[in-house]
Structures are given as structure tokens and as C-alpha cells.
């Protein structure tokens, strides 16, 4: 875990006081809402459907027990006893009072957390792989790079009023668990001649014009990454469109001028910028790296898991994945109970997971873009005890990557931008497919729901995606098939005319029936779709 030094702390503390000053100016009328809005957004404070909403950054999805406990305490003290984990590894509080916001930020600062740049047309929270540091196949832990980028992007003086928001992901495995190529810039760490550097992808994104990012460079060394990114951002800041907010993301620029021309402009700018001494010395990354070094693993641990309890065995098979260290395992905690709200956790649940992280996971936990939690360093011998505590708290659902592990944005129940409700639909789908054996039979099936075209629910990247729209004041749902946010990234295609809430649940059932009838060998739903195409599914749905 990264720990702030006095510099980091003083910057976050100063930000709290700056925001306190801004809120005070708003409450006394010195700032109009038009003037205040960009200032509050740059600190993650929205005016949502029912109240102010505060989005707290969880940089690259890593938290300590103490930080997690603080999130739970804030939920109790300032909100209505719960929080919502988002698809960008952040946490949102739904019921915040404006006057309380500075105090909440001050509390967050005591545990080295903040809400800096969780909204606004600036560089947002850096996201990363929830298995960073514990998966066997990564070339290096991506989080030191992500922390380097967190600091570089914090209050960047040139890139705070970009044409539109800017999201960066850093991964280091061939398995992409972060939808890296659906980010404005994606970095994938690679090893070349024994040196670690980054492949760079630019111009990915979801929203109303989804695009998979093309590669713009096959290697940037660690001592040049900052000046290279400055070049990428400068070209975007100067030439990204500002005439239409729906065409302002970097993906549109890269698409309109072409990836080769964008690359050429970046290289030209980079040649200039790398002369300016903008890159921290390699000693800085060397300073950050030990914070993410392996914790003190015990050796000689048992690999045995007592599977006598069938419910526990089922959970182990579904939620527990291999750890690089013998005797340890990675535990995925589902925030998708069948009748629950995807990504929501009560304050009590948040505090419980904080306790479990401290007691059983070397004081560390992770948040995933699929709105689940992870205990990254668990002794296999402790799995049963953890499962019992999770089960008691309603957190032992065994559905990782199954059809009921649904990603859903808050939708029209909470969000001022939404056109339709996502959560009730997610609950109906989960109920329809509740049967454990049926879910297992369907296997890996990533279902993602967005309540509007902004695509916070990643519907373009769902094996099955659903987009809620407003049809003459009535909620209507379009169905998409064939998307993926993983290393085989692809964009889903719309099946045809939309459905009512119940209609789309029926349509999904027809789609899964076709899959079961047509699959070959060990094909996942996505594999079968890619082999047989849209037609048979369409016939089943509309025929």
C-alpha cells in the first residue's frame, strides 16, 4: 500500500481547505451555481436526482482496512448508512449535504483519501487491475505506475479544462480485467529486453460513440512516460473538439484525424517535451515501488481446503482464484446478492470487510470495475472462517462472472442523467436466473446495464448489454450482444427494437436458450455468439 509522505498529505489537506472556502463562498452567495458547479465537480460533488452525491476516489482500486472502515463510518455519519461502488473503482455517497462536504473530505484526508478529480473535464482517477500484485501472470505490479500517474495528474495546471473527461487505466497482465482498451488512454506494462515499459493505447471509450482504443506506441520507458503522456494530452487539449460535448472525447479526435496522424502529432510534441525535464527521475518510481512489494507472506502453509460444507465448496469454486504465493488465495466478494442493488454495500458490510481485510488479508482489499470487492491475500486455511462471516452479512453470493453478477449503473432511481431504471431490471434478471445450477450451466456471461447512453454500466462491453432509453416518457430497453471489455475487447451490437422491462428479461432468456442449444465444446456465450453471429439470436427474439 502506498503511504502519503508530508508532501502528499499537505496537498490533500490544502485541497480540503480550498473546497471549504469554495463551499463557504457558495453558501453565502459569493459564487453562483454556474461558477460553483465546475469547482464542486472537480471535487466529485454532483447535484443528483435526490440530493448531492459525493464520489470518493479509490486510486487504482486499492484500500487498507482503515480506509475502508472510514468509508463505512462516513456512510453512517453523513449519509443514509450505505455507499455505492462504481464501475471506475470509486465509491459514491447518495445523500450528502453541501455544508457537510468539506468535513467529509477532511475525514477522508485523515486516512489518505480524497475526492480530487472524480468528476470534471480533467484526468480522472487512475484505474487498474484488481489482482495487481497477486496474479501470477503480470510482468510487474502496475500500481507504482498508477500512483506515479495519480500524482502527476493531480491539479495538472495545463490539463484541468480539457475538452472532456479523461480516463486512464494501467494493467500489466495479458488478461485485461480493467477494460483497458475502453479508456481514453490505456497503458499495458510489458517487458522488452528485460526493461519494463508501457504499450500505449489511445482513443477508447464507451458513451454514445463507443470505440476500442488502437495502439499508438509499443513501448515507452518509465523515465519518459510522463513527458509522453503530456504530449498525448497536449495534442488532445489543443485539438479535441469543443463545439459539441458529445464529440469532445479523445476517441473522436483520434477517429477523425486517424490514429496515424494522432500518433505523428504526439511524437512531434513528445520530441519537444522530452527535452524539458518533465519526467521524475527513475528514483521516484523506485521510491514508490517498495510500497507495493510483497507483504510478509508466511511459508509452509497448507494448500488444503476442507470442502465438507457444500455451500462453502460452491463459493470457493466460484469466488476464490489462484494467488501467486503458495498457501494463499484471492477472495472475490460479490456485491451482487440476488435481490440486492449491484455495487451497494451497507455501512455495516463495509466495516465488516474492513475487519476481514485487517484480520485475514494483510490489511489490504481491492475494488473491481465490476462493482465487487477483493481480499487479495488470504490464507487458504482461513477461507472457511471468512466465508462464514460473509455469509452472515449477506455477502457470500457465489456468482462471479455469471449472469447474475450484473454490472448496473445507478440509473433513474438515483441519476439525473438517466433515462431508465437499471437496478430494478438487474433485480428481475437476477431473479429469473436465480437457480444456481442454471447459472453454472450458462457459465461466464457478463451482463451489463446502463440507464442512459453515457454507458456508466458498460453496456457496450457486455456479452449481453442493455441500454435503457426514454420512449415517449416510458422506460424502454435495447438489447446488445457480443461486447467484451477484456483482452478480446469488442463492442456489442443492438439486436433490434427495444423492449419493456419484462420483455427484455424474456428476450435474454431466449438468447441464453439459443446459446445452450448451439454451443460447441467449452464455448462461452461470447464464443458461440462470435461463431454463429447475430442472426439465430435475432430470430429467436423477434421471430
Amino acid at each position: 500500500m502506498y503511504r502519503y509522505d508530508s508532501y502528499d498529505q499537505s496537498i490533500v489537506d490544502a485541497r480540503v481547505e480550498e473546497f471549504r472556502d469554495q463551499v463557504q463562498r457558495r453558501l453565502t452567495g459569493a459564487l453562483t451555481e454556474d461558477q460553483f458547479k465546475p469547482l464542486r465537480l472537480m471535487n466529485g460533488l454532483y447535484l443528483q436526482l435526490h440530493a448531492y452525491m459525493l464520489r470518493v476516489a479509490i486510486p487504482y482500486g486499492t484500500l487498507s482496512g482503515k480506509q475502508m472502515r472510514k468509508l463505512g463510518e462516513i456512510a453512517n455519519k453523513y449519509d443514509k448508512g450505505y455507499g455505492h461502488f462504481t464501475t471506475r473503482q470509486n465509491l459514491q455517497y447518495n445523500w450528502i449535504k453541501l455544508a457537510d462536504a468539506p468535513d467529509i473530505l477532511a475525514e477522508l484526508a485523515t486516512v489518505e483519501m480524497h475526492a480530487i478529480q472524480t468528476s470534471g473535464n480533467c484526468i480522472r482517477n487512475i484505474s487498474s487491475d484488481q489482482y495487481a500484485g497477486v496474479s501470477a501472470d503480470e510482468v510487474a505490479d502496475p500500481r507504482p505506475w498508477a500512483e506515479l500517474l495519480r500524482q502527476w495528474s493531480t491539479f495538472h495546471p495545463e490539463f484541468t479544462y480539457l475538452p472532456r473527461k479523461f480516463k486512464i487505466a494501467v494493467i500489466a497482465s495479458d488478461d485485461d480485467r480493467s477494460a483497458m482498451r475502453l479508456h481514453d488512454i490505456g497503458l499495458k506494462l510489458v517487458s522488452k529486453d528485460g526493461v519494463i515499459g508501457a504499450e500505449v493505447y489511445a482513443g477508447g471509450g464507451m458513451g454514445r460513440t463507443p470505440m476500442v482504443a488502437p495502439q499508438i506506441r509499443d513501448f515507452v520507458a518509465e523515465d519518459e512516460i510522463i513527458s509522453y503522456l503530456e504530449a498525448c494530452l497536449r495534442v488532445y487539449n489543443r485539438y479535441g473538439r469543443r463545439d459539441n460535448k458529445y464529440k469532445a472525447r479523445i476517441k473522436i479526435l483520434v477517429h477523425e484525424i486517424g490514429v496515424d496522424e494522432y500518433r505523428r502529432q504526439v511524437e512531434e510534441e513528445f520530441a519537444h517535451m522530452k527535452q524539458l525535464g518533465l519526467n521524475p527521475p527513475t528514483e521516484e518510481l523506485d521510491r514508490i515501488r517498495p510500497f507495493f512489494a510483497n507483504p510478509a507472506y508466511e511459508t509452509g502453509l497448507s494448500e488444503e481446503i476442507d470442502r465438507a460444507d457444500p455451500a462453502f465448496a460452491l463459493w470457493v469454486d466460484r469466488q476464490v482464484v489462484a494467488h501467486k504465493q503458495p498457501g494463499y488465495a484471492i477472495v472475490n466478494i460479490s456485491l451482487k446478492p440476488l435481490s440486492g442493488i449491484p455495487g451497494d454495500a451497507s455501512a455495516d458490510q463495509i466495516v465488516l470487510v474492513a475487519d476481514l481485510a485487517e484480520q485475514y488479508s494483510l490489511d489490504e482489499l481491492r475494488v473491481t470495475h465490476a462493482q465487487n470487492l477483493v481480499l487479495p491475500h488470504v490464507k487458504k486455511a482461513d477461507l472457511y472462517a471468512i466465508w462464514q462471516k460473509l455469509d452472515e452479512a449477506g455477502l457470500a453470493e457465489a456468482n462471479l462472472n455469471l449472469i447474475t453478477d450484473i454490472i448496473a449503473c445507478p440509473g433513474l432511481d438515483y441519476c439525473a442523467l438517466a433515462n431508465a431504471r437499471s437496478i430494478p431490471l438487474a433485480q428481475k434478471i437476477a431473479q429469473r436466473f436465480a437457480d444456481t445450477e442454471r447459472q453454472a450451466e450458462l457459465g461466464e456471461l457478463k451482463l451489463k446495464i446502463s440507464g442512459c447512453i453515457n454507458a456508466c454500466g458498460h453496456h457496450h462491453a457486455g456479452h449481453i448489454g442493455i441500454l435503457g432509453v426514454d420512449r415517449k416518457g416510458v422506460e424502454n430497453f435495447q438489447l446488445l450482444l457480443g461486447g467484451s471489455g477484456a483482452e478480446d475487447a469488442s463492442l456489442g451490437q443492438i439486436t433490434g427494437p427495444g423492449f419493456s422491462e419484462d420483455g427484455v428479461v424474456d428476450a435474454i432468456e431466449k438468447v441464453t436458450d439459443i446459446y445452450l442449444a448451439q454451443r460447441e465444446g467449452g464455448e462461452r456465450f461470447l464464443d458461440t455468439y462470435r461463431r454463429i453471429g447475430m442472426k439465430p439470436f435475432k430470430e429467436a427474439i423477434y421471430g
Partner: protein
Amino acid sequence: MGRSGGEYFGDAGVKILTGNDLVTGDVIWWAGDGWSRQVNDSVDVGDKGDDLVRTEEAALRVVGAYVIDATTDDEGVRPAHIKDRIRALGPTVRPDLTLKPNDADAGNWVI
């Protein structure tokens, strides 16, 4: 919805004013002499909506105020759009946090 004759405003659709309390963020409705959390306290603002938005925002009593269409009947005031009905009630997936926590069917009102 086949709703008939409201005793407050008559049959016709009305214009009502809503927004959020600047300090607390609560959803509020213009009740004629001040703001209320209950949509049923709304009054028809007619063509005075824009003026009220200006004066009430300037007085720091409301933020993000806007005028919407609504209809009225014996049960009260019903905003024309589902988004404002959800604002009037609360999140349908958390009945305990709506303004009608004891009404299990309250969520159906928004549809």
C-alpha cells in the same frame, strides 16, 4: 392515466416548480409561500415560474430549479415525467428511503 377532476387546480395540466434545497440537497417543490418536500403541496405557478426560479435561486433557497408539467386529481399532484415522479417519491429500489416508507406499492406510482 384517465385521472379526472382535481379539486386543487381543475382538470387542466398545471405548471409546478421544483429544485433542490441549496444546503441539504433535498428535493423541494414550490408551495406558494415557500418550499415543501411534498409534491402534493405544489401550486400552479402559471407563467410565473421563470421569475420564481430567478428570485428563489438568488435568495439561496434553491438550486437547479426548473418548471415542469404536472396533472392533479383527488390523490394529489402528479409530475408529467417519470424522472420527476421518482424525484417526488425517492429511489424505487429503496422503499425505506422514500417519502412513503410504509407503502409497499409506492413504487408503482412512478410508472
